[in-house]
């Protein structure tokens, strides 16, 4: 059964409680209409429910989320998927700053652009590997302190002059991998990363994730894959080993 809620002018506490109460009664699917700015939707939910969000959700969407699938039919704001553990979020629009901060599992599929500090502190542990894919371009400090997971920037439909990622790309990165469709200028790279070519394993991994991505956004996988990708990897898992005097 699907529970539809008109959220116009509804304070987030009321809305989120309504969702939690419904989950307790085994509700599994929600459609939220007239969302605008409600914070913490999906926060801390462990059940594999589905929520469709019509409107711009507020900050910290899906923070600590652990399982649900979210569809956002608008742009997301800041702090989307903050410290998220598991689940999937598909955004039919752009995402704000600090996307996927400390994210340690699950998947974010963003149709358009992502803001500053995307994937900051993203981590992986054993089988839990978070994935972020953005169809557009990213702001500065993308993949900052990244310690694990997969981050993909596609740069679809961008002007030639617009860089696919901002400055300080992968600064402080010490784990995980960033795939970029196209090129990045050397001076925009953080000190801790190097650019590599893709191997067969990379291509296989990309095809798997992008196949799913293309399905959601009605794109042609072949076409997306037709432009060459580069791969950013951290130079070392201990970039600051020689920083200190004892």
């Amino acid at each position, binding site marked *: 059964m699907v529970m539809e809620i008109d959220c116009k*002018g509804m304070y987030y506490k009321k809305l989120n409680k309504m969702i939690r109460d419904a989950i307790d009664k085994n509700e599994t699917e929600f459609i939220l209409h007239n969302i*605008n700015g409600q914070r913490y939707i999906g926060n801390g939910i462990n059940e594999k429910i589905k929520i469709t969000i019509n409107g711009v959700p507020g*900050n910290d969407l899906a923070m600590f989320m652990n399982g649900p699938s979210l569809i956002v039919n608008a742009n997301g704001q800041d702090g989307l998927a903050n410290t998220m553990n598991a689940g999937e979020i598909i955004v039919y629009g752009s995402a*704000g*700053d600090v996307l996927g901060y400390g994210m340690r599992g699950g998947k974010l599929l963003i149709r358009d652009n992502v803001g500053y500090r995307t994937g900051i502190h993203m981590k992986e542990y054993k089988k839990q590997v978070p994935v972020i894919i953005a169809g557009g371009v990213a702001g*500065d400090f993308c993949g900052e302190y990244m310690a694990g997971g997969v981050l993909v920037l596609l740069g679809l439909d961008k002007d030639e002059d617009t860089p696919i990622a901002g400055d300080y790309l992968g600064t402080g990165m010490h784990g995980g991998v960033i795939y970029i469709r196209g090129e990045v200028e050397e001076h925009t790279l953080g000190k801790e990363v190097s650019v590599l070519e893709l191997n067969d394993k990379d291509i296989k991994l990309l095809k798997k994730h992008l196949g799913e991505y293309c399905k959601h956004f009605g794109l042609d996988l072949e076409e997306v894959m037709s432009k060459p990708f580069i791969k950013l990897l951290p130079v070392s898992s201990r970039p600051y080993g020689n920083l200190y005097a004892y």
Partner: protein
Amino acid sequence: MRCNCYIPSGCSISGMMSESGKRMDGNAIIRSIALMHDRGNGLGGGFAAYGIYPRHADQFAFHMMFDTKQAKKQCEEYLKDTFDIVLDEEIPTRPGGVFEEETSGKDAEYGARPITDPPILWRYFLDVPEEKTTFVTEDEYVVNKVMEINSKFDSAFVASSGKNMGAFKGVGYPEDIGMFYKLDEYKAYIWTAHSRFPTNTPGWWGGAHPFCLLDWSIVHNGEISSYGINKRYLETFGYKLELRTDTEVIAYLFDLLVRRHNLSVEIAAKALASPFWKDIDRMPDRERKITSAIRQVYGGALLNGPFSVILGHSRGMVGFNDRIKLRPMTCGRADDMLYMSSEESGIREIEPDLDEVWSPKAGTVVIGELHEEVQ
């Protein structure tokens, strides 16, 4: 390892402008800032409005706050000596004013807090006597007098001092402040708003945003970590910083750089949020020369720390972020309207159908300007 802590809360700001000069009542801006209710803590809210006094457009409109009748009397004596008072009246208010509606960002039950215990709020429409401007410009004269009142009179405060504009601010949530000041009854072509979460400065009516001087108004989200040197820098140019708050420096820096040093708003913003040297080094020759000079000469004006700011002035509205974008700002356009807000939802609340919505890059300015033909 230390974290560069982006804090997704704190203050919020919002601004809207009709570039064709269409005047709108205050309901929309109140709704926009009310949506971001939880970013403030009810210890300060305020608005700046441009175009509200068309019948007194040639006079300096002083919005004043007095703690006591005695202070008002003393200050009025001073105003009489220094200006020609064309008109003075109480600023109309709705005592106990409150914004009752529930919104997606505000709980009706707990969120509303009626405004009580205001200071004496009075406005004066002032002309500068001609003989006073023999050696200084009118603006310079007004600046000096504003500085003098704010530093010499303990219980009097000039909330704003520009022409055909005014600041409406106080202790409370901004939407309640807006209702208290009856902003629904004013019409302006630029509105900016601020909701405050004061940490470093005590919550007092004068301390709320916007901060104004002449027709400059500033609403600001974040904290200026370079306040110490910005203050000392301004003091060398004769500014008196009495308000013990970092936002004040931004208003004065624009006054110094744009009005007194005659720099364009873009260049002034470049001094306040300069590009990094590594980027300057890669610029083409002339741009590098200009930008280097700005950093070398205006180092004391560099604002450091997390901030997003909306500057209002009689011809427009300017928004910009700190150099590494530690505070949020989203902009939107629909027809002749330009919107700026800490959150996209703050814009969507009052204009769901935007032609364009974007987040400006760190250190870049977004400029709204009245069309040239608009008087």
